[in-house]
């Protein structure tokens, strides 16, 4: 099971570029949420310098923007690894051994939740339900969900994905 072609490519942080990318959302319902998603899509995270900029664009205080960005689990404030691995912690996956799987994945990557493996490849995050509860346990890597994941399956997937990183960097 290997549906991902390789890591998502993130650009280096650039405040002007970030501003340009979100201007069109000013005045839209929930515009600042759309903007936070967009910035993260481009850069992989939301730099602190985006807070005052977003405040200006969306007519909010810096504190309000910070409050929004920090409320939601999705929004990252530091650059993540090349891949983000989310392991489901909710009940349906627990019933199929996700607790053990989580410990094994942590040990294999040498990273706890909210941490990145030493090679910079995998950032590990908890997630509560991926909506694939009849095929537990589930994980998600970037935007791809994987069902009935075993630790062996994860290891081979991780090595394939790591290989894709090397190939990409060799280019």
């Amino acid at each position, binding site marked *: *099971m*290997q*549906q991902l072609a390789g890591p998502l490519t993130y650009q280096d942080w650039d405040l002007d570029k970030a501003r340009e990318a979100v201007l069109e959302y000013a005045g839209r*319902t*929930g*515009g*600042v*949420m*759309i903007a*936070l*998603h967009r910035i993260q899509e481009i850069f992989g995270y939301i730099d602190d310098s985006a807070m005052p900029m977003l405040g200006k664009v*969306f007519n909010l205080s810096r504190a309000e923007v910070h*409050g*929004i960005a920090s*409320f*939601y*689990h*999705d*929004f990252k404030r530091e650059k993540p690894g090349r891949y983000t691995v989310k392991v489901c912690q*909710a*009940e*349906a*996956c*627990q*019933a*199929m051994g996700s607790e053990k799987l989580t410990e094994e994945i942590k040990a294999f990557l040498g990273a706890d939740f909210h941490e990145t493996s030493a090679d910079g490849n995998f950032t590990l995050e908890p*997630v*509560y*339900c*991926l*909506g*694939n*509860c*009849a*095929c*537990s346990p*589930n994980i*998600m890597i970037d*935007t*791809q*969900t*994987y*069902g*009935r994941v075993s630790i062996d399956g994860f290891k081979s997937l991780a090595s394939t994905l790591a290989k894709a990183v090397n190939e990409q960097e060799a280019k």
Partner: protein
Amino acid sequence: MVKVYIPRETTADSLGAELLVKAIATEAKYRKLDIEIVRNGSRGACWLEPLVEVETDKGRVGYGPVTLDDVPDLFDADFLNDIQSGGKHAKFLGDVDKLPWFANQERLTFARCGIIEATSVAAYASLGGFVGLKNAMATTPDGIIEEMKASGLRGRGGAAFPTAIKWRTVADCKADQKYIVCNADEGDSGTFSDRMIMEGDPLSLVEGMTIAGLAVGADKGYIYLRSEYPLTQKILNEAIANAEAAGYLGENIQGSGKNFTLEVFMGAGAYICGEETSLLESLEGKRGQIRFKPPLPAIEGLHGKPTVVNNVISLASVPVILEKGGKHYAGYGQGRSLGTMPFQLGGNIKNGGLVEKGFGLTLRQLIEDFGAGTATGKPVRAIQVGGPLGAYFPASLLDTPLDYEEFAKAGGMLGHGGVVVFDDTVNMAKQARFSMEFCAVESCGKCTPCRIGSVRGMEVIDRIVGAKNAEERNAEHIVLKDLCETMESASLCAMGGLTPVPVMSAVKHFVSDFEKEFQDR
């Protein structure tokens, strides 16, 4: 040209469907066979995914679950042309509709799901799609609401509030702008029916929301979708674009002079945003903290305007109600739980997936007849129904009928219809602690019983399981009970208010799990 159906849907995709599409297309090309791969949704039998279906002159036949290794064999068995020899293949299922799993269901809302190409307006219309909208346009807003009332539909998100009453409230409000908001923040563990319908029959949601707009006088709709569903987002946006192109969304819908526009809005991983007021805050671009009620969202909702907030399944059930009539829909189910419910069978289950059936079947029928028992083959010990805020039931309550009132009588709630099965290796003290932990992680922080009570709850449970003797343990049990009562009666919303339900049900039915000896086993 032979039509081959392969789902474009999260479950199938999580098991390699996308690779299968490529492999089958490549193999067909290599063998110079003319095929057309159609991307449907899932029919809901997750245990058969990826389910590959072939359209033959004798009907559609299925093969599943198909892996990449099966592809050459399937072609060798001539699975495209010859059902007889294809029938010899180990993965051959025959006419999928005739499998007991499907034949024993009562599909109204999910009638098209998995059958049609998911985002095609023509395919949707060929199986009754947009008939409901045409009927809605031919009657008055009152006429639509009367039909909804006759259907007896109650909110499928979990609260089971009569949909017609909510619509009536919004319809009666005088305002320059009203909204239809679809709650697609399906965060409950064990639930996936919203995702399945949005991926498999997204136009039913589009049509349902448009009808809701006609009924209450709203011309703008939002689908608040959880970010864990990126494939769903793509499919919904395609369906919306197709509906617009065909004149079923946008301005002057089908020449009626009525307008309705629809937008998908992405959440950002907060469970609490499934609570309607929290969702509205989030949609307005704020922290997803809940609002005090009253005012109800029906009166002051999005941007302070009258707003219908309905769950995906409630809205996706509207087209069939308007197509076949409220009476027809109410002909299913029992008592005050009318119509059908898409139950979702997950966790430790052999044949998991989506079962749509009239209210009234028992948990046992669902788990044993449809689910074929646990995946591990061990006995069922606990079942959590209704998501992370639902009660844990012991196997002795398996004969409880799945019906709002019957479930409430048994101390539980149906919620969004998620059923999560655990085998006999489950540690219920751990599950109870997790309920508190989950509440602590996902609490919006606005009210104290939820924000702090959940943390104290974890601590008390830790002290219970670590107690040196029965006396100490019993004293802590009293504290836990007291804490749960406070959370239940003093929390602002269902998050803090219902977290005690799984906790206290675990204590009630599995109290020995909280003893130190059990923990040390």
